[in-house]
């Protein structure tokens, strides 16, 4: 019960008590067994004795003489009972009223169960899609969608936008010549991307992805950073098979594989083929912005209370079977593999990444992150640096690791775990003063971490200070995730596990 309500009820109770005491002092001052010795001559109305001894009781407000028998001003048992009953009744009524009120404030947004049902529906549809299209890979599809999204926004005001004609049904090139109004979009960072709907129809197949991203818009020499949530609806003709990883990751002609270079009409400049919408590759049908807000850095030191730590863990449907299949495909004993993964991959990645974050130096863990996740982290690190702040995560402890989901396809495997951990999480300025969080009270939290690895790769853990391909020190892996020693991209899971997504409890849908 809120403090002000309790205060309010107490005040009412006291007034009620004093009221009763004023009218019927013999009630509130009565002692058990009738031992109170009130003079019968003094009436409760106190009208004749208002001038006398009103202070004799030191607390009563009636005529006073009725108190002369002696419990002068004491709250006796009946009085206390009345007082307590009034407070108890008021608390009960308040709770009953409050509960009724809370039960009646309902908004038709999906519950966790609704999300779970939708996730199961999507997973089932993806399984169906894999039967029709064995090349389909969720990981690669999301990389493809991210690539389209990023390129669309980057090329928004550039002639290169025509290279998206085969991939987008309605590409509108901004021909606005007025530089003051023309928008230039840059620094696109995708925070999260997931499949929210799959539609398998007789003539077409559709996949809707929900993208949470942020980007900067320069217009009239002024810069605004936006955080957006968008839904992008891709489709293709039924019967089209997905392409190999190289064609899905890099925009290329779906016919000849040459780097994307198309005319305004969608004809490949290399092979001369007209790429019609959805015939050879996924095509963007529609897009809509669900939410858009201006990004402010003022909240960098703000700490919201952890929301979903107490939520029940969301396991994949039949997750035990799925993990058994995964283990069989990899010729491992599941329990042995699980223990090894927990100790040598999950916990190691967790502590290394958190340590790197804590020192604003992601380069030391570049080999552990996918490009998308690295860009997302880098965006936040740069904002902290710009504001001369440092988000410290000290004394990181992992309490529990639960294996919640596994997904396999022709090209990639992904494993999702839920990690329960704690650390001293705080933001300090350059003088070392704590501006948010706490250096002494640990923050307990849980997160869902998704790792991906190329199918067929058997390596789980390796020396993380080295390049998993050439063994050279992992100190020259640039932002692109390419090892400078062997010139090989190592951030796409081709050699071992890389961390792909971190999802908070309250948004994880399975």
């Amino acid at each position, binding site marked *: 019960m809120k403090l002000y309500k309790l205060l309010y009820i107490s005040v009412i109770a006291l*007034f009620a008590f004093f*009221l009763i005491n004023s009218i019927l002092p013999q009630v509130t001052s009565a002692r058990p067994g009738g031992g109170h010795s009130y003079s019968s001559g003094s009436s409760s*109305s*106190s009208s004749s004795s208002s001038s006398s001894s009103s202070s004799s009781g030191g607390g009563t407000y009636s005529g006073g003489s009725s108190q002369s028998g002696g419990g002068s001003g004491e709250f006796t048992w009946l009085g206390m009972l009345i007082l307590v009953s009034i407070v108890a009744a008021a608390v009960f009524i*308040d709770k009953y009223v409050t509960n009724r009120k809370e039960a*009646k404030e309902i908004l038709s*947004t999906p519950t966790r169960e609704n999300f779970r049902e939708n996730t199961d529906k999507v997973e089932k549809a993806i399984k169906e899609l894999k039967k029709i299209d064995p090349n389909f890979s969720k990981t690669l599809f999301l990389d493809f969608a991210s690539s389209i999204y990023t390129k669309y926004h980057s090329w928004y005001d550039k002639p290169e936008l025509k290279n998206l004609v085969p991939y987008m049904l309605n590409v509108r090139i901004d021909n606005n010549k007025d530089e003051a109004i023309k928008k230039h979009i840059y620094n696109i960072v995708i925070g999260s991307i997931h499949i929210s709907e799959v539609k398998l129809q007789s003539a077409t197949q559709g996949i809707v992805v929900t993208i949470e991203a942020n980007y900067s818009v320069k217009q009239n020499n002024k810069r605004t950073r936006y955080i957006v949530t968008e839904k992008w609806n891709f489709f293709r003709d039924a019967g089209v098979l997905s392409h190999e990883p190289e064609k899905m990751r890099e925009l290329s002609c779906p016919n000849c594989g040459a780097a994307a270079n198309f005319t305004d009409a969608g004809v490949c400049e290399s092979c001369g083929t007209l790429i019609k919408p959805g015939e050879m590759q996924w095509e963007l049908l*529609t897009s809509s912005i669900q939410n858009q807000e201006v990004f402010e850095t003022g909240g960098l030191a703000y700490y919201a209370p952890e929301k979903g730590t107490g939520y029940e863990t969301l396991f994949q449907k039949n997750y035990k079977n799925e993990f058994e299949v995964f283990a069989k495909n990899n010729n491992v004993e599941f329990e042995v593999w699980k223990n090894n993964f927990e100790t040598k991959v999950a916990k190691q990645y967790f502590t290394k990444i958190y340590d790197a974050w804590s020192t604003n130096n992601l380069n030391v863990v570049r080999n552990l992150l996918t490009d998308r996740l690295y860009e997302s982290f880098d965006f936040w690190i740069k904002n902290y640096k710009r504001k001369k702040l440092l988000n410290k995560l000290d004394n990181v402890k992992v309490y529990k690791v639960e294996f919640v989901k596994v997904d396999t396809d022709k090209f990639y495997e992904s494993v999702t775990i839920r990690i329960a951990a704690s650390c001293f999480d705080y933001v300090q300025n350059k003088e070392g003063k704590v501006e948010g969080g706490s250096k002494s009270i640990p923050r307990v939290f849980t997160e869902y971490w998704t790792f991906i690895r190329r199918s067929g790769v058997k390596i789980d853990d390796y020396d993380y200070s080295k390049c998993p391909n050439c063994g050279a020190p992992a100190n020259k892996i640039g932002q692109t995730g390419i090892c400078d020693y062997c010139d090989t991209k190592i951030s796409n899971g081709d050699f071992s596990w890389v961390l792909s997504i971190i999802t908070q409890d309250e948004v994880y849908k399975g």
Partner: protein
Amino acid sequence: MDNLKNSYKKDLYSVIEDIESNSKVEIVTMIKSQSGVYRDISFFYGAVILFLAYSFFMFSPPEFDVYLIYFFTIAAFVIGFSIVEFISPIKSILISKKRKNKQVEIYARAIFQKAGIRHTKDKIGVFIYVSVFEKQTYIIADRGAEMSMPNEDWEEIKTKFQNVFSTPNFYQAVIESLQSSKPFFSKYLPPVENDVNELPDNLDVDI
């Protein structure tokens, strides 16, 4: 109570999802305990009771102790205020219907705006607002949805929702009214291929 509320929300969302998968419309439903605070009514009637008590003390023949007058008049205000504030049926009687209707409309329009329900490409957002204390429902249809069907059919839908308060279980009645509106939306706003929900799942309705 939390489990019941969660279970009801799940059913409510499922019904709406069913309607939306069979039509182009995007529906948001909100059930709120009350649309206005109306504390001024409680203060007013608290003051009335205080005045009555004070008048009683002033004009009654017997003499009363000064402390009795002091505390009793204050207590009279507190009791009068509390009775009106915490006993809903009494409060409801004391507030004019016109004011209640207006408050419901204001709140519904504010939520429609705040939640961004107008942000659909074809303006097919529909907001169904049910206010329990005022016993009112208010439906706001965006332009595209409103003009898609004859006004007579809209009135039929609105009447069904207004009648939820005359049933013993109005929560269930809201769900049944939604189900009965499905044929209208399917007929006048038929589904389109590759339609996507344009409204976010986590609507911002904090006013």
